[in-house]
């Protein structure tokens, strides 16, 4: 129709030429355009997922929405949670596996993915603050995933608190406590609080507590208490050496060793150890009498077999 602003057939604007609007498209910010394409795409996808979620909630009462979702989830499982058979309890050992099995694939993927990331960080940075934090978060995440699967059958707040506590105790008692005890027997991390020979302060070493300390291996041992005299800032002082140290086993029980100070026969149930760092004075003004020490086998904590930190010096020892 003459004078009409819209096409009667397709509803397209017939006044585009006379309308006032910008014809230059919006552009991404410089910072975003500098990002590599995969990173940029990941950023866009996350942003879109969040905005979609917010968009779906817009105009609705958040509490009502969450309640409705909860009731939908509960009706889907007939009030029995996600656990429907005795075998499902075993699936709880892996976070997200139950959710995965019962059709909540996205939830299951997120649960497993986060757990895997925390596990990876916890293993790589074991013995450091970040590793400990990751391990703690990993356990907490596992508990949260278990609670998510189990608690749907419970309505009241008190019931849910009980379920959460029970889940935490069960997971820690049945999985993490036995597992950490077993692992720490063969892989106990220690962090050096002072430089020793080739090792720097802060290096993380892994100790196997059940391996036999054979000749040539590095060991962590309890240092017999020893005192040395010397001067410190022009004052007479006593240096007391104790605690755990690292050394290399030179000879086993009954073996005879000739060293510069003379001949040594290692007593039964003892080993001769050369301290790492040798005679290097630990405190200026003191001289260590000898790098060699005879230690009872029972004083050996374990063999040191791996340096895991810093990562660029990751070595088998």
């Amino acid at each position: 129709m003459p004078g009409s602003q819209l096409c009667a057939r397709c509803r397209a604007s017939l006044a585009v030429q006379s309308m006032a609007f910008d014809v230059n498209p919006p552009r991404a910010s410089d910072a975003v355009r500098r990002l590599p394409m995969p990173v940029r795409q990941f950023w866009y996808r996350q942003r879109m997922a969040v905005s979609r979620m917010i968009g779906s909630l817009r105009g609705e009462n958040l509490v009502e929405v969450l309640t409705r979702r909860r009731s939908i989830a509960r009706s889907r499982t007939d009030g029995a949670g996600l656990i429907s058979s005795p075998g499902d309890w075993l699936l709880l050992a892996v976070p997200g596996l139950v959710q995965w099995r019962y059709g909540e694939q996205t939830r299951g993927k997120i649960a497993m993915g986060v757990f895997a990331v925390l596990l990876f960080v916890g293993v790589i940075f074991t013995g450091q603050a970040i590793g400990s934090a990751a391990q703690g978060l990993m356990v907490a995440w596992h508990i949260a995933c278990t609670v998510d699967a189990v608690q749907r059958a419970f309505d009241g707040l008190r019931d849910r608190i009980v379920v959460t506590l029970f889940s935490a105790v069960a997971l820690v008692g049945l999985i993490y406590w036995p597992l950490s005890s077993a692992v720490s027997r063969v892989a106990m991390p220690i962090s050096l609080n002072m430089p020793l020979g080739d090792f720097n302060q802060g290096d993380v070493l892994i100790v196997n507590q059940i391996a036999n300390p054979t000749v040539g291996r590095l060991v962590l041992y309890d240092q017999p208490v020893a005192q040395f005299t010397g001067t410190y800032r022009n004052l007479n002082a006593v240096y007391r050496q104790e605690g755990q140290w690292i050394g290399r086993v030179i000879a086993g029980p009954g073996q005879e060793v000739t060293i510069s100070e003379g001949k040594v026969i290692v007593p039964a149930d003892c080993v001769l150890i050369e301290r790492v760092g040798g005679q290097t004075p630990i405190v200026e003004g003191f001289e260590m009498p000898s790098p060699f020490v005879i230690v009872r086998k029972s004083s050996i904590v374990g063999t040191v077999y791996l340096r895991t930190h810093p990562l660029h010096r990751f070595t088998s020892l």
Partner: protein
Amino acid sequence: VARFDKLEWDDEDAPGPLEPRESSGEKDEHHWFAMAEKQRRDGLHENALRFYSRTLEVNRSLVEAWVAQVQMLVMLGEYPQAITWSQKALELFPSHGDLLASQAQANCRLGDFKSASSLSDASLKQRGETAYQWQVRGEVMTATRQKNDRHCFDRAQILSQDFLVPLESALIYIYHRAFVKAQQRARAALDRQPDSHFAWLTLGRCQEESGMTDAAIQSYEHCLEMHPNHSEATQRLSQLRQSGWSVKQVFRRLFTRE
């Protein structure tokens, strides 16, 4: 007979709506559109986007320029902006098939396959199918690992004889890391336009990503014969010539997606 005076007949001698006209010396929308198309065929999407905008400054009713703007934003990896712009264009040209397809493409790149599929369906339901609509349909199928993507891209090539259709199909496959299929499309583009340096560059990229180093070097050399100062081809060529054997290349060759 006077009633039929206003009827429109195809005039084969007259230039098409977007073909550059001989006349005038004045830079009209046809001039800017032709400039944009040239830049696009050379793979300079940023410049092409600017020229499409210049086209629209002169004539805002050119829906082809609106579609091309969205396509360039997608090529430049600015997907949210592409969606915003396609929505704006759809307000002016509701239910335009190519605009719906362009929005579907941006949604697909953002991983929203559900919206992408429904928009692609809607675009194909509009009157008059175009190559771009089928390309987007093919991209959605590629992204969702369906098997009929080849048919869609073939259909696009039948609908348009322009070498840009198989070439941009190759770029779509490259984006989804299906380098073998991309190589086939790039070769189809070269069959139609053997002197396109951008097509040779695209073919070289596909070959390089597939681990076919010697073939990639040849393709880059062809590209440089036609465009001696092409910076990307020069850079890729020197990288290929300097690189020796690498595990990455072997794995690429073994696990390249068909």
